[in-house]
């Protein structure tokens, strides 16, 4: 197959936040210093080559992109300061933007003011939509006099549906591309067992962060000298499981109605614990991004701030509400906090396909395909 070199891709990647990869002199230090590379998974140097040659299809069909947890060791030790870790991160942003079909991500990832504008507009829309669920409030009545209730309500629903479609489309696109790149696509009955095993291995990684824990294991690495509860893998684990726990708790609350007044209700207990976990992880993550102890945290992009900031705000406002409900505080302030909490939570869901959050879909897919190559 003929390969067309597209040098302009390197230029485009700079808009996704990668700057220095041109300095690479192909020593392979990044690939070898990484604790996660092995036999069939060799990155980041390969991704640098793809980027410099402009092999867009190769990049989009690379599961290696998602095998990296960005511990930053490659960037710390790169003799050319080509920052391969940041290129990997930029390529993931690039991939998120290109799997997602609407083009919104492509627009907002490359343009920070547009990103902020989009987020704010979405917040207003979701705020309005929220009021349609509480039409008896005076603010709601005032707004519905100007914009019809149905317009707002359907617009909100439309946003959710649109997000859902684009998210699934994105995942579908990714699966298609990764399948296309597989070397030996076996036939017959054995492939179902193989697929099941690969799926199970993927679930295990999601549950235990086994691979992530392999990062920072050598004593010369910064986080290797820190206790486990201060390490990036634990931050990631706690944010992820905190978020999932909250999602479950909220769903249970929704299904079994109004247990919010009882703190000891199982779903409330789950919500509280999960919330604490998520808040701990998000706080630590923000803390590191401000203090920048290692190279990984030296180039925090707007996409990172938005995602982490939202998670953190959702956690803080959630706890404020829990305290307010428990203590029986019924003020306008509590209502505003509730509005913020709900808008942010909804934004997190809506932005799912268009933000860093999308990795929650894409990484497991990549893990699955990686396991498929591995298990027998």
């Amino acid at each position, binding site marked *: 197959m003929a390969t067309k070199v597209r040098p302009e891709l390197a230029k485009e990647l700079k808009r996704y936040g990668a700057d220095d990869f041109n300095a690479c*002199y*192909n*020593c*392979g*230090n*990044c*690939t*070898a*210093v990484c604790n996660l*590379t*092995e*036999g069939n998974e*060799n990155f980041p*140097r*390969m991704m640098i080559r793809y980027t410099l040659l402009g092999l867009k299809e190769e990049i989009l069909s690379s599961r290696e992109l998602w095998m990296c947890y960005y511990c930053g060791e490659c960037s*710390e*030790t*790169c*003799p*050319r*300061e080509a920052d391969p870790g940041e290129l990997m991160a930029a390529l993931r942003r690039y991939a998120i933007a290109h799997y997602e079909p609407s083009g919104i991500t492509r627009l907002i990832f490359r343009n920070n003011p547009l990103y902020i504008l989009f987020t704010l507009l979405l917040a207003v829309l979701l705020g309005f939509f929220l009021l349609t669920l509480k039409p008896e409030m005076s603010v709601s009545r005032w707004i519905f006099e100007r914009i019809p209730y149905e317009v707002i309500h359907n617009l909100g629903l439309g946003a959710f549906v649109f997000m859902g479609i684009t998210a699934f489309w994105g995942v579908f696109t990714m699966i298609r591309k990764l399948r296309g790149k597989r070397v030996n696509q076996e036939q017959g009955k054995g492939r179902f067992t193989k697929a099941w095993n690969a799926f199970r291995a993927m679930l295990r990684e999601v549950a235990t962060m086994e691979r992530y824990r392999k990062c920072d294991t*050598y*004593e*010369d690495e910064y986080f290797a000298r820190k206790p486990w509860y201060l390490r990036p893998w634990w931050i990631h684990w706690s944010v992820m499981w905190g978020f999932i726990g909250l999602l479950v708790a909220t769903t249970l609350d929704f299904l079994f109605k109004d247990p919010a007044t009882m703190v000891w209700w199982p779903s409330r207990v789950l919500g509280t614990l999960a919330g604490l976990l998520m808040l701990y992880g998000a706080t630590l993550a923000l803390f590191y991004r401000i203090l920048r102890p290692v190279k990984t945290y030296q180039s925090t992009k707007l996409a990172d701030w938005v995602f982490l900031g939202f998670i953190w705000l959702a956690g803080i406002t959630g706890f404020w509400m829990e305290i307010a409900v428990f203590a029986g505080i019924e003020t306008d302030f509590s209502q505003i906090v509730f509005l913020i909490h709900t808008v942010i939570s909804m934004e997190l869901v809506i932005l799912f396909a268009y933000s860093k959050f999308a990795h929650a879909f894409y990484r497991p897919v990549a893990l699955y395909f990686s396991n498929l190559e591995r298990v027998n």
Partner: protein
Amino acid sequence: MNTMNKGSYDALVIGGGIAGEEAALNLANMGYRVLMVEKDYSIGGKMIHLSKVFPTLDCAACITTPKVSEVARHPNISLYTYSEVKEVKKTGERDFHVKVVRKPRYVIEELCTGCEECERVCPVVVNDQYQWDLVGRKAVFIPFSIANPRVAAIDIDHCVLCGLCEKVCPAGAIDFTQKAVEETLTVRTVIVATGYRLFDPLRIPRYGFGRFPNVITSMQMERQLAPTRPYNTVLRPGDGKVPDNIAYVLCTGSRDHTVGNPICSQVCCMYSIKQAQLIMGALPMADVTIYYLHIRAFGKGFCEFYQQAKGMGVEFVKGKIARITEKENGNLILRYEDIESGKVREAEHDLVILSVGVLSNDEITSVFRGDTLETDEYRFIRQKEELSSPALTSIRGVFVAGAASGPMDIPDSIMSAGAASSEAAAYLTGDRK
């Protein structure tokens, strides 16, 4: 400290390595009176410790010792070893005021015969810096067998002042009352030939140097291959086993921004290839693998020398070693990306040699008063006109020779010293601007 006025010289040569020797000899042979100041106990620089030179495989000591002896005996050259230039001040054209401190070696140079009786009785054993810590030496010691002057010195930091050496010395040369003496001199021109430092691989903890005994530097291997070698064969230091699967890690501390030295050291490729060939001679059954980024065989006969190593069976693998780990038996696992196949690999070797790079040796710039001896962005002495007159520095009348101006090999250092001495001679006659 006593200060003495010791008169004047035509030229001051700072540094007694191969470049300084060449420059001093050139000027002395033209009839100029030269003072050479060497901070170490012996002249000869780095070269005198090497085994062979590339690409001809000539004996390094055999080439350098005639020059060393000539410097030591030349009627026009005064030699100050174990001395440091503390101040150079230009007071006018062809007029430099210099302060030199002659440090005490606690042995009277004129009396010592180099009989080594003192070494035999000294009870203190410390690491021998001239064998790059592979073996020990005494606290009173002849620096190395082909040192010049071949005179003992007392390492007062480790000496226990037992006085045994003083009792046994047949020449009565031991003198514990020696003190540092500062001399003031005037010279008419200065040649800076202070050479280079080797990169300290402790700064790359991923390579395990200092933790893993079988990870050594190229200079340690150079010693093991030299005629005056410490073990009289090639051994790995960890357990004394004769290695049979040896790895070279090129670009250790060179072309690496993370250690602040982004430039090529120019010699590591070739000295590694040379050592590989010598190992093949010393240990015919051993496998030698050289892990490289790019082989830079740019000089006359270098590429042929590289091809010769390949022909002899030295294996060349493209890929930077990212990490070295130690196995229980002392063998080492080298992790790298094999660039040819694009795959991560781990290779086991029983001895690893870090081909350490060349760094600047810029302390000398701090002794210049008034005018500044400028350095370039890599802290080497700045060559004012790098292409047209490479020996000129930022101070008129001060010239640079050899690796003080940048990494270079032995023939280039000698040529550079030739250029510096010619420029200095022209400056001394007053014709040169």
